[in-house]
């Protein structure tokens, strides 16, 4: 058989992707942390002997697209030749791994006939890592929990009990955290076994030749896409709420040739609170946003990510330095795609959507008995606002972008924790008007069950700064955090819900695209009939339709 089409290499590439998907699935099935099992907040991948990522599972969180891709190099640097079969390594260092302490990254070397031929790595969010708990209130990294530097969690197959004991004594819900810790090593081991089976089946000594094939194809395809962009520099700025002071994100995309650099000069300085973002996480979301628009079908690996580079000044909030607090780094991280897509719009006007709610409205709730000795509960809910209108399509109502997470069923949340969610419903009139309307946000109302008091960690954006419309499209509705008696609450930080009161969240809507007067009357009529837009609002924004 001639090999012009390299059919067997294609088959093996597909198989390798299926190996890492299986690795990821094993983790989802066994994980305790809600964000992993319900929302796919994890990553799984296979790496070659020099630590280059060869394939990665497509999971719910683009935040791990790139962060993990760099991690394995650190372990090779540090442990290199001392690695033996049965070793498993771990870290949660935000700057070496995924940007905050709540993610464990576990790396397992793969040996074949005595030779180290590659690695499996996986990352998952854990329920707790000690410290203040998951929220933005920390002033330094040390308040945010336990940092585990790169070290062995198994040495030649024997568990590092000292590490397990330290963990057990420093985190809340320690059984679940330790359970997730082991789930990560189990999922890597699943990958390791499947890879060895695959190498047997195809009679290969290792994955180097296949990796070379994958890298060559991926890099060529990515560079072809980037070469098609008009050369130039494209800038965009986006004002946001921040924690205690407004924040501005700024980017300059430089295209030319076959690479694309995103430079974040002009972005606000580091915050004194835990909304800072390590550069590795900034890069992950920048790459994700750009890949969606430019190279959606090219799988993630070392070579397909290589033509994308980022740079940022040291003192900026998107390039936080140790020991800055970073626990809620996802809030600004989720807004990075809006930022880079805004700049990209100038190079290719027909691709990017208008700005959206973008940052998830994660609600971390602690329920404690008001008297007596009942059990406390930690409850995590994911909620999404509206996405930005697209050049030819309305925005998506209450749908996550860029995150790919799923919300949890209300019935399940209420069976887990002592609270009642009274409302979780679309929020009319929150989508920015336009030829294409922005996606609607949603409204959530909840209160404690009798005998319990609730506190929650607010990590909400776009309460003061809306998702902006584009090309004449109007802005999306801003978010609101309040009680049912009208009291306004802060959008960031830990707060209590007074007994007898309901917490009310109005999530932001997406921006519109194109001038409202260009929206067809039939679309306006349909929106009014369904109640996405009230008649009053429709008459104001779309008078031509009446």
């Amino acid at each position, binding site marked *: *058989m001639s090999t012009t089409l390299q*059919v067997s290499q294609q088959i093996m590439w597909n*198989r390798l992707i299926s190996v890492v998907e*299986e690795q990821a699935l094993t983790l989802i099935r*066994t994980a305790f942390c809600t964000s992993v*099992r319900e929302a796919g907040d994890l990553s799984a991948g296979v790496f070659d002997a020099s630590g280059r990522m060869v394939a990665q599972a497509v999971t719910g969180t683009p935040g791990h697209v790139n962060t993990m891709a760099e991690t394995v190099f650190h372990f090779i640097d540090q442990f290199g030749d001392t690695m033996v079969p049965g070793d498993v390594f771990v870290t949660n260092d935000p700057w070496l791994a995924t940007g905050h302490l709540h993610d464990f990254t576990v790396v397992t070397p793969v040996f074949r006939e005595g030779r180290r031929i590659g690695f499996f790595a996986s990352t998952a969010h854990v329920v707790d890592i000690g410290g203040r708990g998951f929220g933005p209130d920390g002033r330094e990294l040390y308040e945010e929990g336990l940092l585990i530097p790169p070290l062995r969690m198994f040495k030649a197959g024997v568990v590092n009990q000292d590490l397990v004991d330290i963990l057990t004594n420093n985190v809340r819900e320690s059984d*679940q955290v330790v359970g997730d810790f082991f789930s990560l090593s189990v999922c890597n081991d699943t990958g390791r076994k499947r890879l060895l089976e695959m190498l047997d089946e195809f009679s290969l000594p290792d994955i180097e030749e296949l990796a070379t094939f994958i890298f060559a194809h991926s890099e060529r395809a990515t560079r072809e896409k980037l070469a098609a962009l008009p050369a130039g520099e494209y800038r965009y700025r986006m004002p946001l709420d921040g924690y205690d002071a407004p924040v501005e994100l700024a980017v300059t995309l430089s295209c030319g040739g076959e690479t694309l650099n995103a430079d974040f000069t002009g972005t606000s300085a580091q915050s004194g609170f835990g909304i800072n973002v390590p550069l590795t996480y900034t890069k992950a979301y920048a790459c994700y946003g750009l890949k969606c628009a430019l190279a959606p079908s090219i799988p993630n690996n070392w070579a397909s990510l290589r033509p994308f580079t980022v740079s940022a000044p040291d003192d900026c909030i998107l390039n936080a330095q140790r020991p800055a607090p970073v626990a809620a780094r996802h809030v600004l991280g989720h807004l990075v795609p809006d930022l880079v897509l805004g700049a990209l719009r100038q190079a290719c006007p027909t691709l990017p959507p208008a700005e959206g709610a973008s940052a998830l409205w994660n609600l971390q709730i602690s329920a404690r008995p008001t008297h007596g000795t009942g059990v406390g509960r930690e409850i995590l809910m994911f909620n999404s606002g509206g996405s930005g209108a697209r050049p030819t399509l309305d925005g998506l109502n209450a749908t996550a972008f860029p995150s790919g997470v799923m919300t949890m069923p209300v*019935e399940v949340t209420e069976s887990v924790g002592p609270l009642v969610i009274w409302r*979780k419903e679309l929020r009319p009139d929150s989508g920015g008007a336009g030829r294409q309307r922005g996606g609607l946000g949603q409204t959530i109302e909840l209160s404690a069950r009798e005998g319990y008091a609730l506190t929650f960690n607010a990590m909400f954006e776009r309460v003061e700064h809306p998702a902006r419309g584009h090309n004449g499209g109007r802005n999306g509705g801003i978010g609101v955090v309040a009680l049912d008696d009208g009291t306004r609450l802060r959008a960031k930080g830990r707060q209590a819900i007074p007994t007898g009161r309901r917490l009310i969240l109005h999530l932001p809507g997406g921006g519109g695209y194109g001038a409202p007067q260009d929206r067809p009357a039939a679309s306006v009529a349909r929106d009014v009939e369904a*109640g996405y837009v009230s008649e009053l609002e429709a008459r104001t924004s779309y008078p031509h339709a009446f």
Partner: protein
Amino acid sequence: MTTNTRSARAGADIGGTFTDIALEVDGQLHSAKTLTQYAAPEQAVVDGLLRTLDQAGVAPDQLESLVHGTTLATNALIERRGAHTAFITTEGFRDVIEMRTESRFEQYDLNIVLPTPLIARQHRYTVGGRMSAEGQELIPLDDAALEAIIDAIEAKAYVSVAIGLMHSYRNAAHERRIRDRLQARLPHLSVSLSSEVSPQIREYERFNTVCANAFVKPLMSSYLGRLASGLEARGITCPVYLMHSGGGLMSLASAAEFPVRLLESGPAGGAIYAADIAARYGLDRVLSYDMGGTTAKICLIQDQRPQTARTFEVARTYRFKKGSGMPISIPVIEMVEIGAGGGSLAHVDDLHQIRVGPESAGSEPGPACYGRGGTAPAVTDADLILGRLDAENFAGGSFRLHRQAAEDALHRTITAPLGGDLIEAAYGIVEVVDENMANAARVHAVESGRELDQYTMIAYGGAAPLHAARICEKLGIDRLVVPPGAGVGSAIGFLRAPFGYESLRSAVMQLATFDLATVNDLLADMSREVSTFINETGYRGEVEREFKAYMRYAGQGWEIPVAVARGELDERDVADLHRGFVTAYAQIFGHAIDNLDAEVVSWSLSLRTPIAPVEPRQFGKAPPNERNIESRDMRAIFDARHGQFRDSQVIERRAMPVGNSIHGPAVIIEPETSTIVPAGFDVTRQADDCLFIERLKETAE
């Protein structure tokens, strides 16, 4: 000639394209295939049945039973051809079926379109009143608001109403009260309750399921009524049963009340068909593999029973992608469906790789080689170029395949942009589609905690026998069975289906705080529900009961089924539950977790007629006897494993000797399909006409 002593039973399967009839008379099978008539689907059933009865010489009134399965309900959902339906739900939750899981089913596509909710927002009404997660009334039902909603339902002339309230799987009192009020004022209204259609936790799935039921109910009960009277008018007076998605039979009346249970009944028939063959040969671990024109379906069959699930997805709108359809939570035979069929089209992607499907050439224009104007290369075109199909003898010689058109299509799409030769391109297409299917099977096995290498594959459907052996090679499966009648497998499967029904109820409960009384009440309730369904069918014979608890460690999100010995639990059973869970968990994930409590999320009770114990047959296999083979045509057929053409024997299935093996490479031909037996395998026709294909022990080949 007709006599009174014959035993005659029929199965009828309405599919998207064909309506299949299988008639079994004294163990002898007769079948018919007619085009599905969308305007009056019952007509094709009645006509096909009469014709088959006539051919078999059986009078209509001698037919003993008819088992029916249909995709009509599925198609109505896909095409949104249902009744003018309203949905009444809890205040604050109007948009549950629209907000879905708040996620995107495709991460990297900025222009996805979410599926339209089955019932538009203006037809969704909310009423005050609230139950807690434990089923306590937190707020009473708002009667005044309800009466106003009923006014609107009357004024807007809704034909059908779905009712879905929060936590109704624990306490259905409010849902029932709404039904009572609706029926009191509007007696002709069709009403569906989520607590009856799908009493499972997770509001999105349950609400969507009750909406789907309400949406198709008027249509399906009208259809079933016409079918019953149409049959009666032509003298067919036997009982009619409906195949449900869980693989059992139910009465016509139950089907009219719960038409959502008819979804996927056709594919379920296929799995039952494979399970029956598994039972015949005593095979405990079987992978059933069905490949048709547009999709392939894979099902695991353990201990002769198809694996079941509690939820599935219909009407996917985006490349068969998970999450792009609508969830239906009812007991269902679990199948993985992927866009891989004979008509699946190949293209070249940005990475210069060959991709196949899920786009399909369908039956019009069909693959390029059909010569009906198709210009894109389909899997069938590649199969033709690789010698797996005979251009002159396709579909029993009913039409000729155009090799030139296939070559042109491959050239245009594959070799022009990529280089290489036609054979390599065809090999690439077939290898990619086979890998896609093998991969789907591999992932499904992992999800189910199974290892496939000890399995036997049973392959049916028009395109499966062409691809099955290669997929076995990829999966490390050594034994493959290709049963006869593969083209009407679902209809035959209907004849083998047991009377059976499964009830599922949710009640989340940790073992440490287990409430025995509540659970026992629930189980008693489920027992009554299931018995009612079985009684409806008229079946009065022996039944088998199977209780299962769906369990997980408290804090996890994915449950695994654990067998429960009895329907009335005491303290000891709680300890047994824990033990059973830990064992099952360790089997799937390789380790158990200390110190953590487990919880039950849902309970399942199924009742079914027992499988008649049969002495399993052994596969017969004697050494080759060359003289027994009448035809010795040879054809060059491409062997994907070795990457070269091999001279292969061409043998007619009906001319094969029974019991003597034939070594591959060979192709076994019959009008509906061809079975490829590669080098390294042998094939033996069995007395029941199954082809038994086995991988030879690795020797110097």
